[in-house]
């Protein structure tokens, strides 16, 4: 936490103004920050109590690997929201990138043959497409000065309809041979830990460091807190904002790279509502929706809470499946209430 006294104290202090507390407490995560963590621990305990298979290696791997896509996107979303932006297009963007990536790999197949270079080319295309899509969103927000909500609502519809058009209303499927080679990227791993989990962990740790210990992270908080003051403090507001959207686009590309080997297909229904799940995870984790304060590790916990609820509801058979949405809603609201009431005390 010593970073706040280093290069740009004014802005960092400003960013934390609403959470300012004595120095001892500042060294530890505040009580309010522990709200989501507490909710996560309670959920894990509940899951373990309800079903003995809940803590089995298989189930834990399933839940974590499933969380990885939304997780990587949510880490990027944390930066966008922290700097006062929003991106509703990420779910559609993931579907679009998946479609483009699969079509490109199928098209390159005759010339490149089934092999690692083809997979790498596909990955490069996914990252490139993500970068361009994020750049598009970012430029419309910063250069054209349109509200992020409107820009990304627009691009959400555009990406969704483009992937439906590319798929001719059906499903785009990866060539069977390529799929067999690419499959292990989702299903196998290193030292028994699946690749999507490892990649998610790396993204989360890098995100946490970027938010807490780099100038970029502090600038994001400063801009989200008050962009005028940030501007007068010689922060290049537009460039940082643009960078948050580009970063998010790249992470959507990365999530797609891990997603495509799972089912080897993309359609108009791929990535449906991912944007809302990602935004919900960010807010559950303690990032302020109005910007100014971001907590990457909280986002990770938010993502885990969301996937655990789903998992427990199916493993436990507690309520009629019709009511699953109700339980999810209640837990999401409770997790946020828990931290709000404590932080206002």
């Amino acid at each position, binding site marked *: 936490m010593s970073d706040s006294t280093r290069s740009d104290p004014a802005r960092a202090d400003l960013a934390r103004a609403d959470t300012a507390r004595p120095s001892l407490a500042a060294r530890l995560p505040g009580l309010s920050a522990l709200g989501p963590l507490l909710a996560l621990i309670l959920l894990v305990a509940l899951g373990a109590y309800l079903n003995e298979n809940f803590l089995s290696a298989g189930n834990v791997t399933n839940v974590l690997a499933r969380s990885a896509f939304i997780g990587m996107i949510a880490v990027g979303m944390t930066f966008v929201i922290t700097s006062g932006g929003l991106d509703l297009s990420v779910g559609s963007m993931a579907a679009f990138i998946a479609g483009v990536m699969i079509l490109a790999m199928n098209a390159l197949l005759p010339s490149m043959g089934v092999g690692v270079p083809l997979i790498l080319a596909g990955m490069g295309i996914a990252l490139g497409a993500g970068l361009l899509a994020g750049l598009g969103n970012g430029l419309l927000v910063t250069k054209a000065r349109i509200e992020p909500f409107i820009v990304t609502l627009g691009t959400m519809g555009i990406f969704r309809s483009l992937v439906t058009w590319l798929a*001719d*209303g059906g499903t785009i499927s990866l060539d069977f041979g390529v799929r067999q080679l690419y499959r292990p990227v989702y*299903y196998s791993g290193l030292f028994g830990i699946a690749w999507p989990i490892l990649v998610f962990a790396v993204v989360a740790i890098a995100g946490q460091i970027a938010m807490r210990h780099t100038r970029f992270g502090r600038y994001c908080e400063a801009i989200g807190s008050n962009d005028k003051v940030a501007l007068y403090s010689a922060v290049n507001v537009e460039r940082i904002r643009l960078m948050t959207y580009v970063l998010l686009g790249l992470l959507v590309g990365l999530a797609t790279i891990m997603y495509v080997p799972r089912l080897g297909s993309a359609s108009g229904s791929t990535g449906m509502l991912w944007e809302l799940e990602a935004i919900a995870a960010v807010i559950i984790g303690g990032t302020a929706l109005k910007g100014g304060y971001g907590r990457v590790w909280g986002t990770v916990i938010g993502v885990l809470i969301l996937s655990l609820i789903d998992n427990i509801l199916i*493993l436990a058979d507690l309520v009629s*499946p019709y009511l699953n949405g109700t339980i999810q809603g209640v837990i999401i609201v409770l997790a946020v209430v828990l931290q709000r009431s404590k932080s206002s005390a």
Partner: protein
Amino acid sequence: MERRTFLTTAAIGTAAAATGLSLPAMAQGKKAVIGVSIPSATHGFMGGLNWHAQDTIKRLKATYPNLEFVLATAGAVGKQVNDIEDMVATRNIDALVVLPFESEPLTSPVKAVKDAGKWVTVVDRGLSQAGIEDLYVAGDNTAFGRVSGEYFKANLKPGAKIVVLRGIPTTLDNERVEAFQAAIAGSGIEILDMQHGNWNRDKAFSVMQDYLSKHKKIDAVWAADDDMAIGVMEAIAQSGRQKEMWIVGGAGMKQIIKRVMDKDTQIPVDVSYPPALISTALEVTALNFVSATPVYGRFIIGSTLITAENAAQFYFPDSPF
């Protein structure tokens, strides 16, 4: 609003002549115009339906030079209502073939078309008021569930354990599931779990993963939809339990039909609910304008069991679905 009033006034004039069987008011040499309004291709089944609609229109135009078609696809209810009003106002259609986005809001616009003396064919989703349409063409959801259930009953021993994936919570899904449960009643087959997979691959994948961690022994899966069957297969492959259970999907996706044709033991059969039902509606409606064949009434397309023997007739390799 003005257009609606115009429609009703026109209707009063022609109502007497147009009651009952609307005879095609087609003078020699005049083309009959058939308006087709369907939801746009937002998911696999509708994608297939769109493809079949276009394919059939192309064929009918070539076969019957005196027929003309106006096709409009709508992504929302409001758009579909506008489409239908425009067809009547600007294209002077003689018949409307419509797959209502939703029953309730489409009922009065379609009734206005009928009242204007046009032929109306309603496809798959009924209107909320009986007796508007001249022809009703639909799949059979009860049979869909029953045929699937009968296959389970015939191929599993008493005491066998199965899991079920349901679609999006709708009456359509309820009809299927109730018919399925009725068909396996008394067979001693135990349904371990029934959760919603929303007719979505990803959702079905994670629901099946959870089923697999929860249940040590599963003999069969009723995925109730081919998209869901694909997600289910992936989850089973991940757990390495392919030998333990077989899967029955539904609808007639080409990849699944291909597996049935190739005698895949994991997907022994499929149950049809063909998106090509729009073709039936178009062909039969066209007959009304080119011949004296009586085609009014209800045409319910049965759901049949697709096996390796008859799979070829359900296989459309060019369709996107």
